[in-house]
């Protein structure tokens, strides 16, 4: 699985393993019942033999941490190119088992440990605070799963899913129903990063990093905000300011965001400044985040359609790059100049990258 992704990336860049300077791999310990995944995959499946290989594992943000570290390595001039690969094989272990070890044994493990519980509580607080209905959330799943039908790499293929299907699906953890939740997927994502000189050898149509932004956070139990994803608000404000983006809906052409649940996409679009607080549903209803809208969100089908954790956030960056390179096939948005990818995970962390068609600063 990892070999397939890496081979595709190398072949596409017309590179041999010997041409690769260094490798960043990303995968979460324990999530598939293994530990120290460098041993399993760092040498064979990613061509790491006698090369520098570094693993990055930051929970849901693993992929975006990888993607951002790839950028740091190239932008700093340390390497001329780098292979970045993230994966997860969630059929083989219990992600929750792995996640639980991250939480405090006395206060958190018996109640709030795992992904589902906190996301359900966040959805509940969000729904009550802003008066958002389950129907409103269900519309996100319908949008994203329809988009997924255009993406041959998406895991869940349910192009005909309806609002009723979502609202009548099995209750998992109130208010989250089965189809409000992302799946557990198996997948790998591999990207080649290169400096300006090296890029000329690889392609005449690259996607350029314009900027990255990260905000980390930790709530001990619930001692800080568990809703409105403050890290997304902080990280996005920082990156917009740095790049001179005044109105993200106008200035960005597409966004790939990390929505583990339908409710999350509504709330995250608010935190990212695409609309005001409580207006995520309105943004969707106005069609702005649809494929044909002013700022399409998750043309790939998003996390609601595929979630191989260590790859998931890297897929957001990869999809942003694909849109800029115009290689999205049926999921391509016309004339993309600027695209944003978002990673969410860890302890309510947000990591962002904005990519562009032009190597020069945005404006």
């Amino acid at each position, binding site marked *: 699985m990892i*070999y397939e992704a890496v081979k595709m990336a190398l072949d596409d860049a017309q590179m041999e393993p010997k041409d690769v300077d260094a490798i960043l791999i990303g995968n979460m310990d*324990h999530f598939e*019942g293994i530990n120290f995944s460098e041993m399993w995959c760092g040498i*064979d*499946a990613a*061509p790491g*033999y006698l090369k520098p290989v570094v693993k990055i594992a930051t929970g849901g943000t693993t992929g975006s941490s990888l993607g951002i570290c790839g950028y740091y390595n190239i932008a700093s001039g340390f390497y001329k190119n780098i292979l970045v690969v993230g994966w997860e094989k969630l059929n083989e*272990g219990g992600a929750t*088992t792995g996640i639980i070890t991250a939480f405090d044994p*006395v206060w958190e493990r018996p109640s709030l440990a795992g992904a589902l519980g906190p996301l359900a509580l966040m959805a509940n607080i969000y729904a009550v605070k802003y008066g958002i209905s389950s129907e409103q959330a269900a519309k996100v799943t319908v949008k994203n799963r329809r988009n997924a039908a255009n993406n041959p790499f998406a895991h869940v293929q349910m192009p005909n899913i309806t609002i009723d299907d979502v609202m009548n699906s099995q209750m998992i953890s109130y208010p989250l129903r089965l189809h409000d939740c992302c799946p557990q997927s198996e997948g790998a994502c591999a990207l080649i990063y290169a400096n300006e000189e090296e890029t000329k050898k690889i392609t005449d149509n690259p996607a350029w990093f314009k900027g990255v932004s990260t905000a980390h956070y930790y709530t001990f139990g619930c001692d800080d905000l568990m809703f409105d994803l403050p890290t997304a608000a902080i990280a996005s404000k920082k990156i917009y300011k740095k790049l001179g983006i005044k109105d993200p809906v106008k200035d960005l052409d597409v966004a790939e965001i990390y929505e583990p649940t339908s409710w999350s996409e509504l709330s995250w679009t608010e935190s990212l400044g695409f609309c005001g607080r409580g207006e995520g549903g309105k943004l969707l209803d106005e069609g702005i985040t649809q494929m044909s809208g002013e700022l399409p969100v998750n043309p790939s089908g998003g996390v609601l359609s595929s979630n191989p954790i260590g790859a998931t956030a890297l897929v957001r960056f990869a999809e942003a790059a694909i849109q800029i390179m115009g290689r999205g096939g049926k999921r391509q948005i016309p004339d993309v100049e600027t695209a944003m990818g978002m990673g969410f995970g860890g302890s309510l962390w947000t990591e962002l990258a904005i990519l562009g068609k032009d190597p020069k600063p945005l404006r």
Partner: protein
Amino acid sequence: MEGEKMNEELEKKVFRGRIKVPYKHTAGAYVEKFITEIGKNNKIMGVKCPKCNKVFVPPKMICFKCFEKMEEWVEVSKQGTVKGFTVISHSTPVLPLKPPFAYGIITLDGADTDFVHIINESDPKNLRVGMRVEAVFKEKPRKRILDIEYFKPI
């Protein structure tokens, strides 16, 4: 005595827990083929790299040096040469045999990689690097790597 008291006090503040770690492992087509061949046909199979021609036993999908997918299966000999060994003398519940016995690194004739397995030789004085050994197969295979029960000196 003071130290014991302190330990007791500390003990009260320690939270003891247990986490279950269930998992499954997709062993894959290469393991399946290897295990089936030793059990059914008493044959030891390796795979050959199309680029460097190295024969890997046990078989794996990718040649780590060439980054090539290996798909050509070749049978290697049941006999090989011991490259190194250690003798197990202390008994624990998970051991496959009653000590003393040896674990050896064995290069099978026709393979380019080494294979770690049991050498059933109760007298360590008879073991030496460079000695020749041969696989002994289990009469009733159970689809485990221990369907090669052990290697015996020849």
